[in-house]
């Protein structure tokens, strides 16, 4: 999991959304007009326009009281139908979860597990309940015909859809809020704050996954970094990521470093003892007294080197405009854990040319305006070098960041809870909409598929579409399966193969559409941020999720409205 994703930009998002939404509406509208014209002659398009007009009218004459009446009914229904028994399950899980969470682990790992467990439990208890409620609400109403009594009142069909969505969302808000609070208290009790940080090897070991180190000791730049101590202190770090470019051994700039044979191309490597370096540029706004740098690099050795000593790394602060290069003291890296460095406002260093110690001001002398098209901002440039020759140091963009003052754990935790709620709202929207045109089981299946595809199969789908996944499309892979043909063997260039691949292309473009229509739901899941001690970023996660929810809610309302309006509720 990387915590560094491109932030959500409202304008581009809105533009894309309008394009897709407008496109679909346009196509459907045109198609409907044409079909109506074909079947009913000139009166057809008139009727269609009438429907559109009525739709516009219905959407502009909503009655909040009616919507709320439906919502209230929905909430009461959930309550009286004992849907909230889910709390009992939750309470049960929370009561006994402590038994299964390893208390042998060091404190921060326990915290990570506890946070993950609490949030995952909230998520996976809420989702099925809401999924079922929202997918069965309207179909059940139609089946027992209680909807008849409702629609013979002056209720607009969109008010029904909106009321349902609002109602289920409120139910889920209540469930999520209560569970969230209980989970929070549980986490606090499960992992009490430890005032005596333990420094241990075991602690460092488990940092492989992510961690919550908390440096309480002011590091001494002369001596390098202190041991990381790991406590159960709960906080959320606020990283500021920079841009990354590499410098190869000849000193030319490259977008990527070397690959040391790693399958995972997340990190790129620089060669030690050469000009090779990684350049990070962090956007800086106001001068502060001290900058905290945090990094997690990876070592790759081509020879044994000095056994018992980690690779030496050095940061060099660079201001190309003043041709200033300020090397900071080197330090041994700690792999799979965070290395912390503080840079004071006044930076002293030994100048090789002057043969003397110089002191520069971090902001006046080192921060400069970067003219790069993509940056155009005041930046602090930090060059990362590996000092051991023949050894390699791997990094990716999110591996190195400026750490701003930490946010409180409470805020981060509840941001993640909010994310869960937004996901349930999304599911409710889809579920309610689906239930307006299909029956309960089908709607459930449909919504569940959206959830599954949006969360689990996304990467696989992208691989299929881009052709990264070997073996071709569905027909080709079937052919290969049946004929036991290896996916590395090329197919003969015959007509039948071309036909086969043609069909695959069509099928894959269907997949392409699906992949673009079904959102990436992983941005709703913010618990990894909190569990790993990061704040949930507003732009990257929360705002994106919010926009996504609304972006899907609007078409859902439209679809729901028209399918309820154009449907004979009696017909089964």
């Amino acid at each position, binding site marked *: 999991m990387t915590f560094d994703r491109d932030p959500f930009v409202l304008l581009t998002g809105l533009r894309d959304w309008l394009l897709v939404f407008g496109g679909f509406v346009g196509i459907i509208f045109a198609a409907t007009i044409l079909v109506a014209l074909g079947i009913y002659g000139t009166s057809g398009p008139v009727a269609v326009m009438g429907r559109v007009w009525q739709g516009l009218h219905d959407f502009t004459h909503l009655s909040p009281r009616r919507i709320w009446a439906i919502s209230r009914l929905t909430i009461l229904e959930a309550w009286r139908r004992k849907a909230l028994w889910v709390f009992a399950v939750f309470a049960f899980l929370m009561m006994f979860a402590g038994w299964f969470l390893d208390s042998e682990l060091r404190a921060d*790992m326990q915290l990570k597990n506890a946070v993950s467990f609490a949030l995952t439990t909230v998520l996976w208890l809420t989702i099925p309940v809401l999924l079922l409620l929202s997918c069965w609400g309207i179909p059940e109403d139609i089946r027992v015909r209680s909807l008849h009594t409702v629609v013979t009142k002056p209720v607009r069909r969109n008010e029904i859809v909106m009321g349902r969505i609002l109602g289920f969302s409120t139910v889920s808000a209540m469930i999520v809020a209560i569970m969230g609070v209980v989970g929070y208290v549980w986490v606090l009790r499960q992992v009490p704050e430890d005032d005596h940080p*333990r*420094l*241990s*090897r*075991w602690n*460092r*070991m*488990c940092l*492989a*996954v992510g961690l919550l180190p908390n440096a309480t000791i002011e590091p001494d730049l002369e001596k390098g970094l202190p041991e990381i101590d790991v406590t159960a202190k709960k906080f959320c770090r606020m990283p500021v990521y920079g841009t990354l470019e590499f410098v190869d051994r000849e000193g030319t700039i490259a977008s990527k470093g070397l690959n040391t044979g*790693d*399958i*995972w191309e*997340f990190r790129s490597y620089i060669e030690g003892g050469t000009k090779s370096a990684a350049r990070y540029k962090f956007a800086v706004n106001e001068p502060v007294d001290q900058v905290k740098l945090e990094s997690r690099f*990876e*070592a790759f*050795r081509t020879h*044994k080197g000095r*056994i*018992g000593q*980690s*690779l030496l790394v050095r940061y060099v602060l660079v201001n190309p405009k003043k041709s200033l290069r300020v090397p900071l003291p080197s330090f041994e*890296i*700690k*792999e*799979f854990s965070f290395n912390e460095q503080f840079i004071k406002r006044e930076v002293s260093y030994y100048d090789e040319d002057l043969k003397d110690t110089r002191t520069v001001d971090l902001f006046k002398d080192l921060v400069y305006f970067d003219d790069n098209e993509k940056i155009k901002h005041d930046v602090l440039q930090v060059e990362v070098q590996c000092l051991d020759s023949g050894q390699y140091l791997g990094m990716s963009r999110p591996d190195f960041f400026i750490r701003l003052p930490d946010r409180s754990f409470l805020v981060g935790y509840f941001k993640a809870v909010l994310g869960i709620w937004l996901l349930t709202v999304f599911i409710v929207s889809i579920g309610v909409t689906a239930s307006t045109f299909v029956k309960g089981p089908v709607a459930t299946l449909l919504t569940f598929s959206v959830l599954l595809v949006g969360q689990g199969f996304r990467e696989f789908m992208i691989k299929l579409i881009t052709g990264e996944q070997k073996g071709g499309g569905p027909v080709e892979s079937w052919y290969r399966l049946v004929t036991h043909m290896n996916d590395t063997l090329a197919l003969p260039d015959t007509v039948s193969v071309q036909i086969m691949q043609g069909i695959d292309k069509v099928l894959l473009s269907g997949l392409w559409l699906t992949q673009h229509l079904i959102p990436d739901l992983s941005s709703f899941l913010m618990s990894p941020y909190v569990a790993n001690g990061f704040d949930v970023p507003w732009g990257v996660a929360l705002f994106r999720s919010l926009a996504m929810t609304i972006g899907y809610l609007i078409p859902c309302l439209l679809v729901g409205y028209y399918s309820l309006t154009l449907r004979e509720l009696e017909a089964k």
Partner: protein
Amino acid sequence: MIEQLTLQQRKLAYLIGIVLLMLPVILFGMPATGEEGSGGKLARLRQDYDLGESTLGKVDPTSATMNLVLLGMRGVAVNLLRMQLDEERDQKQWAQMRATTESVILLQPHYIQVWRYLGWNLAYNVSAEWDAVEDRYFWVKEGTKFLMQGSERNNRDPEVYWDTGNTLGKKIGRSDEWKHFRKFFKVDPDKERYKEGPDSEINPTGNDNYLVAKEWFEKANKADELRAQHIMMDVLFRSYPARSQLDYADALHREGQFDEIARKAWDGAYHDWVEVFGQMRFQTGDCEIFLEAPASETAMEQLLSASGVTRPKLERELDLYQNVCNYRYWRTKAHSEKNANTAAVHRDLYQGEQLFKVNELEAAQELLESGLRGYKVLLDSYQDLTVDDAAIEEGLWAIMIWQKIYQLRNQVQPPEEEIPLRSLWDKEINRVPALQEDFNRKYGPT
């Protein structure tokens, strides 16, 4: 009749009926508590015919439940987990990978190869991904612990015991980081957690890694008696406890320890090799043999009369088996090293080099010369050593240091005839260039 009963009475009747029906189920199916003859009839039958899980090793209730819950889907689930394992390895999520390993094993607690592979994976592959030696050691420990757990769950299989021993011995004692690892084995780098002592899970007594490995090899041999192993020739497999003792003694020398402890280690090694391993009976195709037999004529006679093969045939078999495990060499080596004089020779050569390193040239030269003289005596009395790479190289190496000191002190090349242990030098002259290269890399060109 039934209709006349009240509701209460009827319920009671049902309850009694249920209990009555349960009774045979309990009698037959009661699980064994572990004691001999405990449990219901079925449990006892299972025990008698070696069918139950409990006979395979310790039963983990979670694992049993998981397999029950998954019904027939275990294979699918394991496949998914293995894919996840690969992904986590690729993305270097080691802690998650450790957890996934645990899940795989929950589902396949009795697949020996799974234990062996995953244990190796942790101790060797994951360990190598980490940069700091302490980190690497941690993963070696993880792998070892994992294998120990595996042997506990499959206590009838000799293989996992052997793997545990092999990791404890070879990985800790022979990898690049062996100097650190062997120290860590006695004083864990996580000093706070283990209170400046060893990780009691893998080394409860604070012993040498080779000696702990030996215990595991012995367990493996014991298990092998009941159920044969399938990883190597019997004669090799059975030699491991003794080999471990040899490695232990050798490691002490490698670390420059030439005291009584080291000598006793060799003494023990000789005992283990000759008295224990050498006396083990092996079934060859035609006859039963033991490797120490050629040393005694009566033993040979007995073997001949017991098997009925001809003497040349028996000798051929013995020779073959001895060669497989390098029996004669180790016998000679141990015999020579348990001698106090031999230890003195090694000590002189070792300390000579140490003094050379700190530029105490005169003292170094003195020690080396005395050492080399002793070495000649040693080689003369143990002919087998003259064909051993390590023994030859130890001698040649000492000569090279001596030459270097000679040069440094006299600023000239020493004349050929003055080289101590000249006979070895002349005999092995074609080994010299390669070794000289190593030497130059370490101490600068001659």
